[in-house]
């Protein structure tokens, strides 16, 4: 079976190659015969030989790929639904939850992960059916794929002739492929919106949207443990929003001045050598994974703050908003400085020359000419940074609290939207519980808030960016 699979895979790549070679050879032959027969007025070949080959290989490869992809996407669904009906036939069970557990067990059994003795005998009976099903599915795949490939070969081979515009046809195919690819970006967004909205709407069926958005009490754990549908009002997200905002605010307080000033210094004052070192360094800083910052926050910053805080007499919670905010600020510094640096650098040199030729000092040039010129870009960078801070997960998961306190005190522990999403979804999930669905509602809010910020940032750049040329 494995071997056949590999051979099939090889065939998928060999067939187009063969088609390519066939196409080239054929057009060459055709050209030679046409030169012999119509000696006076030899036919001009429309497209280069290579395009005939490429054209044919596309006709062979693409339909086959489409079929494979469809199979990959839908075969599991089809197979498992077939399994479900088979098992329910065997066991007489109708509860979909139980059925799906049976199916998982059967799959595990088939793969040898699960020992047979842990599996219900009825389910064990389905094992043979399952094996046959998979073999049939594979054979179906091989046959259909190869058949389409051959069909593609035959159809395309008939086109080959000197006057045939193989280049144009090939290019059209390429263009279509590219169009499809750019559709993926849109599909993703649609996917995000639909999936979030779908799950969230199920959540809002249970919890009124007003309560979710304006409620001040958040304790989803209780709701679950009591086995309630959550009607007791533990899903007020205001504390989460407040916590998120506070941490974001602290982060910005740290990141904006430091990031901006370092960008200014680097692009305007720093010597070439310093710049050559510092700029990549900052970019590397931006490449540090957030889980590292989270660890840093939890292990260094929070204890440090707490210890020093108690020295000055401040009561700091071990998971204070301050620690998470500061570390998030550190994470954002390279983001802001890197973006601002780009914007500042894209201010044309001749503006600097213009100002200094007027006798402006460098600081005057920067503050009065360059920064105003770069302002839209900088503002948009800051907005993007805010959006990033709001959506940042790992730092807060590791350094901020889980308790939903509604407080304005940065030394206390707060929780954020992303923390709660993680809390709600990590571990075993039951897709129907309000607890799980609440995560999607939070995700939806998160998505829309960041979307607005991003669009605003884009709008500012587009609207206020100066056109120097």
């Amino acid at each position, binding site marked *: 079976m494995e071997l056949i699979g590999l051979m099939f895979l090889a065939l998928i790549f060999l067939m187009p190659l063969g088609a390519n070679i066939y196409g080239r050879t054929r057009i060459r032959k055709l050209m030679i015969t046409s030169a012999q027969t119509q000696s006076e007025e030899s036919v001009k070949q429309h497209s280069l030989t290579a395009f005939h080959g490429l054209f044919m290989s596309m006709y062979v490869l693409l339909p086959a790929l489409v079929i494979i992809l469809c199979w990959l996407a839908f075969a599991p669904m089809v197979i498992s639904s077939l399994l479900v009906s088979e098992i329910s036939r065997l066991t007489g069970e109708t509860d979909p939850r139980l059925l799906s557990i049976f199916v998982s067990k059967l799959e595990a059994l088939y793969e040898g992960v699960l020992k047979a003795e842990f599996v219900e005998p009825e389910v064990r009976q389905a094992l043979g059916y399952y094996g046959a099903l998979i073999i049939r599915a594979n054979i179906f795949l091989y046959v259909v794929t190869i058949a389409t490939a051959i069909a593609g070969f035959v159809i395309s081979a008939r086109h080959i002739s000197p006057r045939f515009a193989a280049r144009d046809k090939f290019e059209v195919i390429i263009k279509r492929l590219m169009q499809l690819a750019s559709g993926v970006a849109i599909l993703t967004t649609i996917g995000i919106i639909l999936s979030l909205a779908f799950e969230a709407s199920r959540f809002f069926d249970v919890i009124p949207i007003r309560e979710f958005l304006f409620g001040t009490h958040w304790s989803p754990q209780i709701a679950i443990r009591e086995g309630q549908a959550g009607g007791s009002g533990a899903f007020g997200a205001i504390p989460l929003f407040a916590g998120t905002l506070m941490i974001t605010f602290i982060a910005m307080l740290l990141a904006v001045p430091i990031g901006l000033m370092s960008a200014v210094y680097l692009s305007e004052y720093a010597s070439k050598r310093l710049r050559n070192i510092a700029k990549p360094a900052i970019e590397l800083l931006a490449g540090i994974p957030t889980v590292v910052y989270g660890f840093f926050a939890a292990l260094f910053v929070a204890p440090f703050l707490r210890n020093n805080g108690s020295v000055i007499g401040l009561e700091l919670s071990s998971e204070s908003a301050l620690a998470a905010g500061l570390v998030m600020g550190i994470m954002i510094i390279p983001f802001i400085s890197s973006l601002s640096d780009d914007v500042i650098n894209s201010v044309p040199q001749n503006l600097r020359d213009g100002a200094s030729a007027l006798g402006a000092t460098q600081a005057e040039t920067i503050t009065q000419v360059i920064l*105003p010129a770069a302002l839209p870009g900088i503002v948009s960078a800051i907005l993007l940074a805010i959006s990033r801070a709001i959506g940042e997960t790992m730092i807060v998961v590791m350094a901020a609290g889980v308790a939903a306190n509604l407080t304005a005190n940065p030394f206390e522990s707060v929780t954020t939207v992303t923390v709660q999403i993680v809390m709600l979804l990590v571990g075993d999930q039951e897709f129907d519980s309000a607890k799980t669905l609440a995560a999607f509602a939070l995700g939806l809010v998160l998505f829309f808030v960041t979307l607005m910020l991003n669009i605003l940032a884009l709008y500012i750049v587009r609207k206020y960016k100066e056109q120097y040329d």
Partner: protein
Amino acid sequence: MMLSTPKIKSSGIIVEYDGKRALHGIDLDIYPNEVAALIGPSGCGKSTFLRCINRMNDVIDNCKVSGRLMIDDTDVYDPEIDVVELRARVGMVFQKPNPFPKSIYDNVAYGPRIHGLTENKDDMDRIVKKSLKRAGLWDEVSERLDDKALGLSGGQQQRLCIARAIAVNPDILLMDEPCSALDPIATSIIEELINELRERFTIVIVTHSMQQAARVSQKTGYFHLGNVIEFGETNDIFTRPQNEQTEAYISGRIG
């Protein structure tokens, strides 16, 4: 013309980029209220020399200037000299119009403001108006001083840059190919303006176009490989140059 003393007196100005000489000792006297045009093949050092006059070369790391350059009685390369003040006295206009992305008014007011020429709104209005008038732009923009400068046409932008430069009341205006980004009509307007500005300023202009040098200048200097080959009355340079290289360049033979 030779009655007065030179406004700019360059003696043996040598410029090196990374130790490679770009100018091999330039001696030039430029007199007040003259337009001096510098012409010559590409890379001969015209711009480099121009940028010596207001020390714009300071900005370039790898650039070293030696020799003596006097403006009136001040030695430009005296270490005591304040570059900021120097540049207020020596305005500069660049190849590509480079208005600040601010309003027309603020562009012109920028120089006077940083130099503290006035803190009085009325005075500032007056300065702005005068400068724009001198730059021949007032009639076109007086109604929309608060509009963005970048909304102006190329030629207007360049005149705005001239207005901005003269708003700080310099003695000298340096222009580095001020028309090479403009179309012929805008070019003529600027050339005309240069001619008028001569009454008040000493102007040094670098140009690629011999025609332009001929049209706007009283003196012309021909640069070649970092040397001034000939400097004299424009009229003479174009009708009877003394030097064969100048002659060859002027009359379109390979220099």
